[in-house]
């Protein structure tokens, strides 16, 4: 299948489809880099470069969303590996710079629910985000995370149990439950 505004090096990817995914992709990239907007945008731009050049080739085995999320995840992992040795220096430097690229602290972010989400192990947090906030199925989310569907399901169930355990009372109080 060749789409009308397909990319030259990625004939199954259309510019319009990428544009429709942009907000979700940016949201996923944000949570890959501690919600730093500048880094997240750079990450998304790198992902677009990979897709534009054809180095990341979409073969339509999964949905385009799953594919782009996977590209972002791989780039974020590579970036993390590169930065690991310099992390201490970067953190020290970051304290001296302005935080204009970082999302302003939101009072809601400090509520019990967000704290509980952030306390989840990374993979459980990832699958919660992908399924709850990015509207992927568990199968698609597992594919993005590079794990089997069974493993993804285990992370998903554990995350839900942990959130219920920690937040049950809080959500009851807020009338969410």
């Amino acid at each position: 299948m060749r789409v009308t505004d397909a990319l030259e090096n990625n004939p199954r990817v259309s510019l319009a489809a990428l544009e429709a995914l942009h907000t979700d992709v940016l949201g996923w990239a944000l949570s890959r880099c501690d919600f730093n907007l500048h880094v997240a945008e750079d990450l998304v731009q790198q992902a677009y470069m990979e897709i534009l050049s054809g180095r990341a080739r979409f073969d339509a085995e999964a949905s385009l969303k799953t594919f782009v999320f996977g590209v972002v995840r791989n780039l974020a992992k590579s970036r993390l590996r590169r930065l690991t040795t310099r992390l201490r220096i970067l953190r020290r430097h970051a304290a001296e710079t302005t935080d204009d690229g970082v999302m302003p602290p939101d009072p809601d972010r400090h509520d019990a629910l967000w704290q509980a989400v952030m306390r989840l192990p990374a993979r459980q947090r990832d699958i919660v985000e992908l399924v709850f906030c990015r509207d992927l199925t568990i199968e698609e989310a597992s594919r993005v995370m590079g794990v089997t569907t069974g493993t993804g399901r285990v992370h998903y169930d554990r995350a839900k149990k942990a959130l219920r355990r920690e937040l049950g009372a809080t959500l009851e109080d807020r009338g969410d439950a």
Partner: protein
Amino acid sequence: MPERRLEDAVRRAWPAPPPGRGFAEVWAGAAAREARRRQRARALAAAAAVAALAVTLVVLMSTPGGEADGAFDLRTAELYETTRWTAPSDALLPERRVDLYGELPAMIESTEMPGGPLL
């Protein structure tokens, strides 16, 4: 707690992406970066090719011509060395060292015919 409510609560708590650069701007940036990357790669490939050519030329130029062009590498001292002959023993020779270039060696007497030379 029902799954749907948990999902809604988490979705509400999750920070929405802030208004950043739009898709068009990010995409244009990606295209520009990719073009610069290709340009750099081409320049690097050209530089590598030139360097390889230069190394090849230097290696070829530094290789002694010698027999490659069919000429012999004649060294005077070595050539003169070949004109001297030294007998392993001087028992049968009047002179042990002979300069082949300047004079013929005197043949040993025992090789002469009793009636004189044949020719």
